[in-house]
């Protein structure tokens, strides 16, 4: 999932802050590494536009702010995906309204980004693979780029031309008004281009989320742009380093350009000069969820108003846009940023469980936390991975699963490597490979935290794998698979025990355990961004697609159907899917902050937005365990477990993070009477949220 991981406080940030203030008393103004220019180094808080559900991008249209709100209308009755502010200046009470009929959900599938030209034209990057262009004051838009784009994530104007970043093509495409491509930039350089900024001189800057850097494409003497970019920055959390930069904006000071970068996983806005040298940062860091008021949590989009002073920062994770006033002076460092008590787990959206092993992703350090799933609470036993390039190190974890042991060769059994039967499968979308691990785990002994437990079994290259795939229908050539979920295929023959969900080809792949051979089956044509799949005991397969807003169901006979609702409950952003032991569907809807449980005929909602037990803040991946269905509650930095069966059995029974667990509801949680868990007797401990 391109969306960010969960964080209250990253160890890296903490280390940075501690290092920065080590020689200063807390609360004093820090001295930035500064090259003497006039770029802003701080910002004062001005206002918040709240309840902007899942806001992904912002742009200024004169004095009005345009917002991409793909999840608008969380009741299922979707309203306009592009909204605009009604008044200037903007304050907390400023109302939002639909930009116009041209941006209704029937026109725009999933608004990724919006850009406004100097002449008032508006372009919208639509994740379904097109760009909408609307002339100033027009009521209709035109579509360009159909069949050209794979995943247009951002758009910008360069005079009359459009510059589009395509995350799957890994390039910037320059197009004219008719959609005719005139140049392709950064081919072979960009890993995952994200937000774009175009300077007054025509130079193009793009944030590269996976490569943790910016790329600068300079204007040539003939007015065209260099097709090869210059890299700015590197991976990390120190000044001038980035962790998943998502967007870049430009302000001009004293005739020179200053770059503002939404440094998403470092939770800050970094400022660079035009040469890419570090100037300062501000906004770091929302240690307390929903902290706001100038503290920034997962910034994804930036826009500078025409006054050159007002900066809009979109925070999709917090469903808000903050308005900040840029200033020359640096901000004081927030003393709370040094509190070690805030260290917590940072779950990604993926989870796997099987063979007594629970595996959850800590996406800020690119590692898998392994727990003993037999116990309540699950005991944390080891960490697999960490950032790096070699096998057993990860670039970006996109899927994790625990499968029954898949190898049975005589030579293999002779090694007697594992005391357990489970294998942990980890897909790495950055390095385009799948690593498989076993644990040297003696289950007869009490669990210990032991970093020697995991052992790499094999590492499989997906680029080599794609050459060996055969296609049951349709598309050629295939792209290198981007594996976003892994499941047991429940293949009775044992020849194809693994089921892979491939977002790149929008397909399911059945494979043997060493990816020697595989068969790819394309998902229905309306699939857009499949995120998670599940296999029922009866052979049904469910695929959650939050972009298409559907759950696709494959019957055992191979026929597909699409669910836009479960029972009477519309699916807004289905991000995870699973089955209960009795075959009912469980769907996490991250836009509803809830899970939906039931069948096509009838279903019910479990949960609501909140921080208590049986409440969610961005419900994500789902896994089945012997003790119940586990749902990642990403925004609350935890998972919650429910019963194994549908109906009345589907009750909350555990909330867990790494190291802290609750199996008795906290006071105030839904369905819990106050007297049921008095503070003096409740064994539950306070959450780190």
């Amino acid at each position, binding site marked *: 999932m391109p969306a960010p991981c969960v964080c209250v406080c990253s160890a890296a940030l903490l280390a940075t802050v501690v290092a920065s203030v080590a020689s200063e008393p807390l609360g004093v103004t820090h001295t930035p590494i500064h090259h003497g220019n006039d770029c802003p180094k701080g910002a004062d808080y001005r206002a918040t536009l709240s309840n902007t559900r899942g806001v992904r991008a912002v742009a200024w249209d004169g004095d009005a702010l345009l917002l991409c709100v793909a999840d608008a209308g969380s009741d299922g009755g979707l309203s306009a995906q592009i909204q605009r502010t009604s008044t200037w200046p903007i304050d907390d009470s400023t109302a939002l309204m639909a930009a116009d009929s041209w941006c209704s959900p029937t026109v725009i599938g999933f608004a990724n980004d919006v850009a406004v030209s100097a002449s008032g034209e508006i372009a919208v990057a639509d994740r379904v693979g097109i760009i909408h262009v609307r002339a100033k004051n027009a009521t209709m838009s035109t579509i360009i780029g159909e069949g050209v784009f794979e995943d247009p994530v951002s758009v910008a104007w360069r005079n009359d031309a459009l510059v589009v970043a395509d995350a799957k093509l890994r390039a910037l495409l320059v197009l004219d008004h008719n959609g005719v491509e005139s140049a392709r930039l950064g081919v072979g350089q960009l890993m995952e281009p994200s937000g774009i900024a175009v300077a007054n001189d025509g130079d193009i800057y793009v944030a590269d989320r996976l490569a943790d850097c910016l790329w600068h494409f300079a204007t040539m003497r003939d007015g065209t742009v260099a097709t090869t970019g210059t890299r700015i920055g590197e991976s990390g959390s120190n000044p001038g380093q980035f962790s998943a930069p998502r967007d870049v904006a430009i302000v001009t000071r004293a005739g020179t350009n200053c770059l503002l970068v939404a440094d998403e996983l470092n939770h800050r806005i970094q400022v660079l000069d035009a040469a890419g040298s570090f100037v300062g940062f501000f906004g770091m860091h929302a240690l307390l969820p929903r902290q706001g008021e100038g503290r920034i949590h997962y910034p994804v989009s930036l826009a500078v108003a025409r006054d050159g002073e007002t900066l809009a920062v979109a925070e999709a994770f917090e469903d808000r846009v903050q308005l900040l006033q840029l200033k020359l002076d640096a901000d004081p460092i927030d003393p709370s940023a040094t509190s070690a008590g805030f260290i917590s787990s940072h779950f990604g959206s993926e989870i796997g469980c099987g063979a007594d092993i629970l595996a959850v992703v800590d996406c800020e350090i690119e590692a898998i936390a392994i727990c003993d799933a037999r116990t309540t609470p699950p005991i944390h036993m080891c960490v697999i991975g960490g950032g790096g390039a070699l096998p057993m190190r990860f670039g970006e974890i996109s899927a994790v699963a625990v499968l029954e042991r898949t190898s049975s060769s005589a030579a293999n059994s002779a090694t007697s490597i594992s005391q357990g039967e489970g294998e942990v499968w980890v897909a790495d979308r950055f390095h385009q490979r799948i690593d498989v691990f076993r644990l040297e785990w003696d289950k007869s002994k009490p669990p210990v935290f032991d970093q020697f437990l995991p052992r790499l079994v094999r590492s499989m290259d997906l680029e080599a794998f794609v050459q060996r795939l055969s296609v049951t229908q349709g598309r050629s050539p295939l792209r290198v698979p981007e594996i976003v979920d892994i499941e047991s295929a429940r293949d009775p023959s044992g020849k194809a025990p693994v089921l892979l969900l491939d977002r790149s080809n929008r397909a399911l792949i059945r494979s043997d355990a060493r990816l*020697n051979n595989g068969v790819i089956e394309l998902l229905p044509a309306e699939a857009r961004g499949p995120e998670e799949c599940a296999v029922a005991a009866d052979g049904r397969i469910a695929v959650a697609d939050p972009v298409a807003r559907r759950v696709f169901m494959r019957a055992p006979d191979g026929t597909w159907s699409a669910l836009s609702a479960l029972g009477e409950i519309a699916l807004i952003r289905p991000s995870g899917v699973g089955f209960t032991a009795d075959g009912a569907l469980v769907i996490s809807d991250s836009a509803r902050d809830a899970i939906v449980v039931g069948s096509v005929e009838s279903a019910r909602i479990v949960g609501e937005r909140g921080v208590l037990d049986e409440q969610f803040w961005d419900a994500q991946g789902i896994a089945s365990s012997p003790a119940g269905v586990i749902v990642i509650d990403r925004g609350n930095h935890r998972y919650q477990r429910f019963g194994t069966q549908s109906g009345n059995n589907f009750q909350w029974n555990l909330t867990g993070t790494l190291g802290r667990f609750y199996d008795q509801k906290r006071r105030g949680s839904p369905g819990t009477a106050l007297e049921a868990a008095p503070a003096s007797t409740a064994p539950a401990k306070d959450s780190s949220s």
Partner: protein
Amino acid sequence: MIRLQQTMLLGLTLTALSCDETTTPSVTPPPAPIDVAPINAEPRALREGVSSDGTYRVGWEPIGGVIPDADPFAVRFTVTRSDAQPLTDDVRASIDAEMPHHGHGMNLVPTVKRDANGSFVASGMLLHMSGRWVVSIDVQEHGVTERTQWYVDIE
């Protein structure tokens, strides 16, 4: 290196947090793993093992017979298939070492060359501190990598 340090920090933090739980996991040093390649408490020349998925038999020895303490050294290693078939032409091999409990690897990146008789020579190995290391040799064919690993205790 930063992320490696983060991994270590996480592990330490989680261990500490776990101590507060009703079911208290042990934080004593872990027992020796069962039925794995032998721990090398004493300097020894040839170490042999089978890759984790069983495809290869791998042996290695430090050139000169001993692993020096905090000095660079070279190793020679051999790879054969368990099914006695020859290795393919595109076979690639690499060697690495890390300290899982400390969350770091070597400070040097070894280089591997294949000599005329088919064995591999890695130079630039350095186990720079005392404690338990994991030495691993990765063999890759047709896009699938398998790892063989050994524990090496440096006094």
